[in-house]
């Protein structure tokens, strides 16, 4: 028993010190990366970074990041390497096509507020022309309509408006205007129907006219579902 305890104690201490030596003081940081334009540039960044620095790359997440920018997670020892140094090295690396990478530090939405002149122009000439017709929601069975609307939303709308309707869909980053946050119509009454119907039918800004694709009933299913989308913190 004594022998067993001794061996166990020694191996425990050895493992503990080994663990301390390897992982002592390491931190994991996230870096938003600009300049990842191809599969080759994804690989080049990681291999070059490992060549130049004594770090461990945990992963490079291209998809489903909060900001849409690829996120590189790096484990490093802050006593040896600083975060600024890592950012500098990333900025020095070139991909096979000669493009440089950069750590993104810009704003979340790259569309500055309208300047006074633009606001004035919209006041004079109008934002857009809308010919709203009075429409009545023909839905009888709301539960099944909302269910159909949800499926349709995931299939057609979520890429731009986001799965939870936050207006932060995957492909929305390059749009002129940020897609609308759909919880604006949560529990909206029938007064909003004409507007929603018109927007879905004719589109607005970067939104295409879904009237060409969706039938009248499908549009109503969508409207019924949109009215159930809550703000995430209220969920």
């Amino acid at each position, binding site marked *: 028993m004594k022998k067993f305890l001794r061996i166990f104690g020694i191996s425990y201490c050895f493992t503990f010190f080994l663990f301390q030596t390897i992982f002592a003081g390491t931190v994991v940081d996230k870096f938003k990366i*600009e*300049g*990842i*334009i*191809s*599969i080759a*540039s*994804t690989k080049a960044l990681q291999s070059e970074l490992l060549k130049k620095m004594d770090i461990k790359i945990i992963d490079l997440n*291209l*998809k489903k*990041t909060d*900001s*849409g*920018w*690829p996120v590189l997670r790096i484990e490093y020892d802050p006593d040896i390497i600083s975060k600024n140094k890592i950012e500098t090295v990333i900025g020095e690396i070139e991909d096979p096509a000669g493009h440089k990478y950069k750590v*993104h530090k*810009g704003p979340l939405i*790259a*569309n*500055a*507020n*309208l*300047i006074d*002149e*633009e606001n*004035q*122009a*919209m006041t*004079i*000439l109008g934002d857009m022309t809308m010919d709203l017709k009075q429409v009545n929601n023909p839905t009888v069975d709301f539960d099944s309509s909302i269910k159909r609307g949800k499926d349709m939303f995931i299939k057609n709308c979520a890429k731009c408006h986001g799965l939870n309707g936050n207006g932060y869909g*995957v*492909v929305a*980053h*390059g*749009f*002129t205007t940020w897609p609308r946050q759909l919880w604006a119509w949560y529990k909206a009454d029938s007064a909003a129907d004409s507007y929603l119907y018109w927007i879905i039918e004719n589109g607005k*800004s*970067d939104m295409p006219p879904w009237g060409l694709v969706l039938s009248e009933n499908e549009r109503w299913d969508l409207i019924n579902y949109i009215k159930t989308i809550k703000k995430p913190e209220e969920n």
Partner: protein
Amino acid sequence: MAEKIKPPRIRVSRRIKKNKVFKVKVKFDHPSFTGLAMADDTTEPVFNRAKPVTFIRNMLVYYGDELVSRLSLSSGIADDPLFTFKLKATKEAPVKVVFIDNFGKRWEASKEIKFKG
């Protein structure tokens, strides 16, 4: 966006008669980029952000003091676009074109309209 963007250039018809329609051409060397790329096609390919989005957001056309047109543009337009439009020569006054990009930066160019013949 590191490179300096030059102001737009305007050309108008040489002979402009009163109350006749004349053509205006505006060239603006400005990049246009969605900022998106597809760097992963292993499973379900999706776009990721690769560069900051850059595009001309609004183009405003003034004839004299009057705002005659506003074009709401997107990242879908070409780099260095050329715009051509027609105006009715109702007065001798400058035609001014203003461009504003998504960073809120503003450029303008103007050309004096004078009647000939």
